[in-house]
């Protein structure tokens, strides 16, 4: 039996698909940016000698890294719903992705922090800098260079994982594709195009990351 491709309907629905792709992109960008900020704090908390900080951070990281992203999205959408907290699909997926991103990035950042020689701290201290200044001007800029590439990998992962939004009826690229194919029955065509769009999005993000790194990181580490 030979399959007959019908691309016309896909092209007609291109505006919806592109809108879905746009939602995917900004969802992942927010999930990444907020995830990074939380991960920096979690990494510092996890390295703290005080258990009040290190234990909650460890719990976060362990749950995020050792449970499926699907579970986290379900927990954010249906789990919280059971307690009367009703998040929109967008916010539920966003929260879950932030949770996982922060968990994974914490370990990346912790490794990054530990790779900075202790002497950088004493040198900064000897110049009269306080703790916040040392982190802001000396430690974080060096740490981000070292973990930049693992971080972009996490970003790509986050874009692809956002496709789980399909499960809670979100209108990101996968959800939109699912809806359109169920109306038209051109399942294969729609998903092929969606896959190509994911590919283009991730390649685009990696290209931007690589261009940005050339601008941002001029010195050697």
């Amino acid at each position, binding site marked *: 039996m030979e399959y007959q491709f019908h691309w016309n309907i896909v092209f007609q629905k291109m505006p919806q698909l592109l809108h879905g792709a746009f939602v995917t992109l900004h969802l992942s960008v927010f999930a990444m940016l907020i995830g990074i900020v939380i991960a920096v704090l979690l990494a510092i908390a996890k390295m703290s000698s005080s258990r009040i900080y290190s234990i909650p951070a460890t719990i976060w990281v362990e749950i995020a890294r050792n449970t499926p992203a699907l579970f986290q999205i379900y927990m954010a959408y249906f789990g919280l719903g059971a307690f009367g907290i009703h998040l929109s699909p967008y916010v539920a997926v966003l929260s879950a992705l932030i949770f996982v991103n922060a968990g994974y990035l914490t370990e990346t950042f912790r490794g990054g922090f530990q790779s900075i020689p202790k002497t950088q701290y004493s*040198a900064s201290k*000897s*110049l*009269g800098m306080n703790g916040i200044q040392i982190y802001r001007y000396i430690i974080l800029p060096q740490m981000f260079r070292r973990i930049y590439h693992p971080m972009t990998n996490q970003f790509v992962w986050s874009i692809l994982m956002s496709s789980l939004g399909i499960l809670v009826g979100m209108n990101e690229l996968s959800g939109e594709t699912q809806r359109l194919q169920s109306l038209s029955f051109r399942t294969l065509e729609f998903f092929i195009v969606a896959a190509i769009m994911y590919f283009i999005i991730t390649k685009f993000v990696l290209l931007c990351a690589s261009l940005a790194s050339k601008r941002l990181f001029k*010195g*050697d*580490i």
Partner: protein
Amino acid sequence: MIKIQDVHKSFADLKVLKGIDLDVKKGEVVSVIGGSGSGKSTLLYCINGIEKIQQGRILVDEIDVHAKGTNRDKLRQRLGMVFQQWNSFPHLTVLENAMLAPRIVKKMNKKRAMEIAKEELNHVGLGDKFDEYPTRMSGGQQQRLAIARALAMKPDYMLFDEVTSALDPELVGEVLDTLRMLRDDGMTMICVTHEMAFAREVSDKVAFFHEGIIEEMGPPEQVISNPQKETTQKFLSKVLH
């Protein structure tokens, strides 16, 4: 003036300093010599409050470094320090390295901070390296950068912790020349060093550390050229060959 009075310092069970008394007057150059593990470097870290002490006091211009209410970040602005490992900031250019602390710690405007940084870099002979990244320079150049970076804060005292020990032999000279220049400028300095000839030449006072105490102290002609104590003689015979 720096007054060090009966300072004791331990790392867990290990007693590193066992009652150090030392005065450093304005404009004086004091060299601290002694074997490794004798507590020389630890003393410098205690003077600028990076390491805590268990007993005694350290006064910098009458401010008690280790007292509870002391703002040590502020105090460190008066105490420049240069380390054995030069610790340049690898993500910043030479000029940015020297400008950073005046900018963010002293809240100087960019123009003024740049002027001071350039002045100090020129002073240590790095006038042609402003836009270079430190990791592309030799150890001697990076060490001179570390000195300029500390000087840009206009400290009243400079603490040098074996600043030539990690350098290739042919680079030691340029760094020692920089220190000589500082002495000629009238900078008050405490130099922990293994360079005996240098210590003899530049110091007003030499302190020989042995197992956490000052075994012998006095002018270099005495301590290095004509040591009285047996431990000092033994140490010097080893390092002077």
